[in-house]
């Protein structure tokens, strides 16, 4: 049922969306009309409607009454934190609608973003717009809520597209509204994920423009988080704090908004409006929390009642707030220093939201890479430079790897060398496998014995120094069992003596072979291991060693030799 409501809601929204978006001209009128309606409808709704069906009816009937819609469907998903924000949003809508005086851009922005958010069934998506409407302070809260629904983000492409469209045809105001989306702060928060619940707190506190509002914000976040965890904590939290706080906040925000409205738009005002918005959200989350205590239906009714009670002040506030919101937008822009070019940023931000990881690396690059004097500074050439630097770095790295390539200058030659080297290595592998293929049949009958012998030999020679060589043959007579012997961990006494083993091997090997120095001089650790595995060749005869040295030489040489 609730879901059904939601769906209808979504459908309606979507249709409206398209209409609105494609016909920008019609939007303002539509919204104005809606605003007029909603002022009344939402009031009536909230105050009178305690049951879902009624709400739904309103939903269906009044397409524009977003506030009532939100109210009606949010109870269905009470448990989620998103709802708290939905509620908050409802308030915003109410405000919007109530204030028909608002500049069109803002009104458009609010509902539009709302709708775009609604389409996704992601209630959370609304929050950014709502928060932005309220102002910069609220931004941190949205990320706080978002991580919980991070999994849903990939599905937001539609929202992003729509938002982009908005930004395209809506003028300054709306773009401003949307801009905060693209601001790095929330982005980071998103990307960091669920653990972010704490950060918004801090941000709140840090930004704490006013202690009271800051506190409210924190509580807000807390409420959201708690409600996500479902009721129990949040209920206690909120229930205890709930009623007094509510009242206080209501009154406080109300008064503030009044005052500010009278005073006219300044930074403080915007903040305060934001705060009042936060207070409202809080209240509603608290309401939710209270609802959580009780069972499903009754809380909803209660909430609605409360909403209804609140509705008047809200709307009253709403007017002022929306007015202030209009003022806020430029301020928000100012606050968001990162919004120099609004549209690209926006799009980037949204894309980043889509894949938060994807958004981060380019940002970092842009942060890290700085153009030197006389270098081009646009993003493409910066990116290109980064890429070139990466490539050259890797080339240098490869240069060290390829023997006889240290003096080669020029990427093309380097690439040639690399290709030759890889090819030669591959050819070597092929050649060696061919050799193994021809060699094997002779040793076929005792290959397993040989393996065991090899491995045991390779282990036994060093281990003889360690005085547990007698154990080895007994412990690992069959091949399959002896294989683990190659892994040092499987030998009981080995691990502690691995260093000694290596030393022993080296000390043993160097006297045996005169020409062995070259391999040992290689610093690589794996040479030791290789010796461990294969050192029987060294241990047995000197000519073997000469062969092996050849193997380590450039391939052409080895080929000639073999």
């Amino acid at each position, binding site marked *: 049922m609730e879901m059904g409501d939601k769906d209808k809601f979504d459908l309606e929204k979507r249709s409206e969306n398209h209409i609105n978006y494609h016909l920008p001209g019609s939007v303002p009128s539509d919204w104005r009309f809606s605003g007029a309606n909603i002022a009344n409808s939402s009031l009536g709704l909230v105050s009178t409607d305690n049951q879902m069906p009624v709400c739904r009816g309103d939903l269906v009937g009044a397409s524009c009454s977003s506030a009532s819609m939100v109210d009606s469907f949010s109870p269905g998903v009470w448990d989620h934190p998103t709802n708290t924000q939905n509620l908050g949003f409802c308030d915003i809508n109410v405000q919007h609608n109530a204030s028909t005086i608002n500049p069109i851009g803002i009104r458009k922005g609010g509902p539009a973003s709302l709708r775009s958010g609604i389409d996704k069934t992601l209630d959370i998506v609304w929050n950014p717009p709502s928060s932005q409407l309220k102002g910069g302070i609220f931004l941190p809260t949205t990320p706080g809520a978002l991580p919980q629904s991070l999994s849903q983000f990939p599905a937001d492409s539609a929202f992003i597209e729509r938002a982009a469209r908005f930004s395209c045809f809506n003028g300054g105001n709306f773009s401003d509204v949307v801009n905060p989306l693209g601001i790095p702060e929330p982005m980071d928060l998103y990307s960091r994920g669920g653990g972010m619940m704490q950060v918004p707190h801090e941000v709140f506190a840090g930004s704490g423009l006013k202690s009271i509002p800051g506190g409210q914000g924190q509580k807000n976040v807390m409420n959201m988080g708690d409600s996500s965890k479902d009721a129990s904590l949040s209920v206690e939290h909120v229930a205890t704090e709930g009623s007094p706080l509510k009242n206080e906040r209501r009154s406080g925000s109300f008064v503030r908004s009044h005052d500010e409205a009278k005073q006219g738009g300044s930074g403080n005002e915007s903040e305060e409006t934001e705060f009042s918005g936060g207070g409202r959200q809080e209240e509603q989350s608290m309401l939710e929390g209270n609802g959580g205590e009780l069972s499903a239906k009754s809380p909803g009714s209660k909430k609605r009642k409360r909403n209804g009670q609140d509705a008047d002040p809200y709307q009253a506030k709403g007017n002022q707030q929306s007015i202030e919101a209009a003022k806020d937008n430029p301020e928000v822009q100012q606050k968001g220093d990162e919004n120099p070019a609004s549209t690209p940023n926006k799009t980037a931000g949204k894309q980043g939201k889509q894949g938060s990881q994807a958004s981060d690396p380019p940002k970092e690059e842009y942060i890290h890479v700085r153009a030197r004097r006389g270098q081009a500074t646009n993003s493409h050439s910066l990116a290109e430079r980064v*890429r070139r630097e990466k*490539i050259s770095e*890797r*080339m240098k*790295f*490869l240069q060290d*790897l*390829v023997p006889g390539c240290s003096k080669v200058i020029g990427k*093309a030659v380097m*690439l040639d060398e*690399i*290709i030759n*080297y*890889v*090819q030669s*290595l*591959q050819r*070597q*592998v*092929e050649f*060696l*496998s*061919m*050799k*193994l*293929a*021809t*060699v*094997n*049949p*002779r*040793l*076929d*009958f005792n*290959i397993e014995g*040989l*393996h065991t012998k*090899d491995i045991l030999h390779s282990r036994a020679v060093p281990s003889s120094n360690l005085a547990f060589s007698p154990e080895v043959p007994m412990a690992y007579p069959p*091949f399959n069992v002896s*294989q683990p012997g*190659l*892994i*040092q961990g499987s030998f009981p006494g080995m691990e502690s003596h691995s260093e000694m083993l290596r030393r022993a091997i080296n000390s043993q090997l160097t006297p045996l072979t005169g020409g062995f120095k070259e391999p040992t001089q290689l610093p*690589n*650790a*794996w040479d*030791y*291991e*290789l010796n*461990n*595995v*294969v050192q*029987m*060749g060294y241990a*047995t*005869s000197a000519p*073997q060693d000469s*062969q*092996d040295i050849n*193997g380590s030489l450039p391939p052409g040489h080895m080929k000639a030799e073999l």
Partner: protein
Amino acid sequence: MTSVHPNSTTTTRFARRFLISLSRMRRPITLGPPSDEEVCRRTRRIKLAAYSSMARAVGSRRAWSRALLLKVRNRVRFQGILRNRFLASKKKRVIKRNKASGEMNKTDMLRKLVPGGETMDICGLLEETAHYMASLATQVKVMQSIVDQYSK
């Protein structure tokens, strides 16, 4: 950038896997010298074993080893089909390669050489190449020493 040198455990793992796969290759015991065809077949098998054991030793950390493992797995799975297809399309492929080799630049050649390199960008390709090269060198060393051991 992480170190490209395959560490000791990788080498050990490769050697162990390779020896195991070598020992698993059961072949008919023939007294005379093996025919060319059989040597060829065995060579292929051993080469495959060497590559797959190297890739397995490196694990799925690297793109090239992933690509190689996938190739090996697919090869095992669709062995019959692939062989038939291979035989059928051998002529065509030769012709194509001759045509393409003229205009293929260096990067594409490197892409062809490094397993899974077709889908990488240049940076990733170079990085993978470095690691692949080091692994190949290790492989060659181990195989060389095994060959020495057998042929002594």
